[in-house]
């Protein structure tokens, strides 16, 4: 017992918080990458996360393709749709006010969600974890489902990998430079329009990857993305989008904060992240890691 709370319940909720935090981190990371390059807030990010989960579900239901291949295929499929969208639509919005990008992707999210609601209804579809990760491990103080442990580890690897890609590679240097001054980078001979397309594709792919990873944890439902994306927006406001690492850390920390709230004051657990956002806005308007006021 800690503070009158059974230790199992405490660690159980912390694990839930860590799982949620993993998804917050992956999604806010994608949002930050897209925003950095395209200066667009991708409202469709939640819908693309849903799309990733459905891609996994549909691959299994209609083609018999299991979790592991889907883990590769779903992000690629979502990334490709992102590339098409960027080429056809978003690339026409770069010279306009950034809010148009937000409005366009909001419309896109509504369409994607509506289409899946039409075919699959609002109730969720079950998606089992792969046999390799079925079951769980008793840690003594708590029972740890193997799949959840995998989600935490994999998301950490994905976040760190993306961070390294951006901070330590040549492609990352192009991305960072183009975030600062796209026309100069293009004048140096770098195909910046292509870079923008790829960035959106990769960002969407990350959302799709988070989606297929989430499929066995939550139900696969058309609405799974829209509620999540608003929380992720709050995470992004808290962390500020100037820093990739900041987005990742904020995601995990706020997930844990939410888990803790579930233990001590469950009624507030759905709003705690928004409350934290409000407090951060009062104390540090630019966000915890933000340079842009």
């Amino acid at each position, binding site marked *: 017992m800690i503070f009158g709370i059974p230790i199992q319940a405490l660690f159980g909720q912390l694990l839930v918080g860590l799982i949620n935090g993993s998804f917050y981190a992956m999604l806010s990371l994608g949002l930050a990458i897209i925003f950095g390059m395209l200066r667009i807030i991708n409202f469709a990010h939640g819908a693309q996360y849903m799309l990733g989960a459905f891609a996994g579900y549909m691959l299994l239901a209609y083609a018999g393709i299991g979790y592991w291949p889907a883990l590769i295929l779903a992000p690629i499929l979502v990334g490709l749709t992102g590339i098409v969208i960027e080429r056809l*639509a978003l690339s026409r919005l770069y010279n306009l*006010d950034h809010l148009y990008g937000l409005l366009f992707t*909001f419309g896109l999210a509504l369409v994607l969600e*509506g289409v899946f609601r039409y075919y699959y209804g609002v109730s969720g579809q079950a998606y089992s974890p792969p046999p390799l990760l079925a079951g769980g491990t008793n840690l003594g103080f708590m029972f740890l489902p193997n799949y959840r442990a995998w989600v935490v580890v994999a998301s950490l690897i994905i976040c760190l990998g993306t961070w390294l890609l951006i901070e330590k590679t040549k492609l990352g240097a192009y991305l960072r430079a183009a975030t600062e001054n796209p026309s100069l980078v293009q004048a140096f001979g770098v195909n910046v329009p292509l870079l923008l397309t790829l960035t959106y594709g990769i960002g969407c792919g990350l959302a799709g990857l988070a989606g297929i990873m989430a499929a066995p944890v939550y139900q696969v439902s058309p609405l799974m993305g829209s509620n999540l994306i608003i929380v992720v927006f709050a995470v992004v*406001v808290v962390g500020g989008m100037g820093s990739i690492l900041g987005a990742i850390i904020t995601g995990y920390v706020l997930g844990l904060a939410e888990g803790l709230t579930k233990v001590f004051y469950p009624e507030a657990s759905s709003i705690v992240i928004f409350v934290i956002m409000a407090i951060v806005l009062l104390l540090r308007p630019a966000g915890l890691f933000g340079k842009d006021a």
Partner: protein
Amino acid sequence: MADVTMTGTQSTVGTRLEWLLIAVGIVALVAAPFFFYPIFLMKLLCFALFACAFNLLLGYTGLLSFGHAAFFGGAAYFTAHAVKVWGWTPEAGVLLGVAGAAVLGLVMGFLAIRRQGIYFAMITLALAQMFFFFCLQAPFTHGEDGIQGVPRGDLFGLVDLRMPTNMYYFVLVVFLIGVFAIWRIVNSPFGMILKSIRENENRAISLGYSVQRYKLAAFVMSAVLAGLAGSVKALVFQFATLTDVGWQMSGEVILMTLLGGIGTMVGPIVGAALVVTLQNYLATSEFPVTVVTGAIFMICVLLFRRGIVGEVYARLANWNGDRH
């Protein structure tokens, strides 16, 4: 968002056309209940006022709020509760709803104006979602059921609002007062300062205006008028539910304004009329409404950002320009 707006095209022709449209519009609205279902018309007027209130902020101050449902739906809850549980008169209920929206607007606005542009939109969305969860859990809103069976009562103890025609004319008067108030605000010295903030915030700051206070004032005014629309809507439909505070509602009011024409007086009304009509039409079909609204969003952003009324003004201005 300077390039959203379109002051340049609002020529004298536009203004003259607006006056003509207003005159025709008022006559049409007075006569309308003889031709259409009053309940449909009242819904339309409530949403039109909501969209006009939203446009005061987006079109004339350049701030995109993604959380206006909180004021609309929040005021609906306050009014419904006051009238049903406390037995208040309709006018007192509406006043309470509006006051509640003002308080909400003050709190949300105070937080949101600390950031600009895209962050402002995300903050308002998140705060409105927080309010949504509050409404989901607070006992007085009755969760998923909402507040049902709200009595309309007698306006000032004299006019029986249970009569559809009486209710309709009450809504119409509220609508006209609301739109007139917006028109006065926009064309006042205060409105001019708002527009200068929209055009160039830094210049407004360097001219010595306390931009933050003006933004907050505009935000609260917009919230108050959105609340007015929501309060009246609660009386019209005699219920207040979670639908009115959800993010989808915030999206809908953006769509109405965008479709009609951001930064025009008539645009949001036209947009609201179209969206409400479309929803009524689609309500009977199997086809999901969000697919249609989402598609309209994408088309508007890609192809005609000026909206219907804005596009008409632009054409008229061109045509007028060619003649001279």
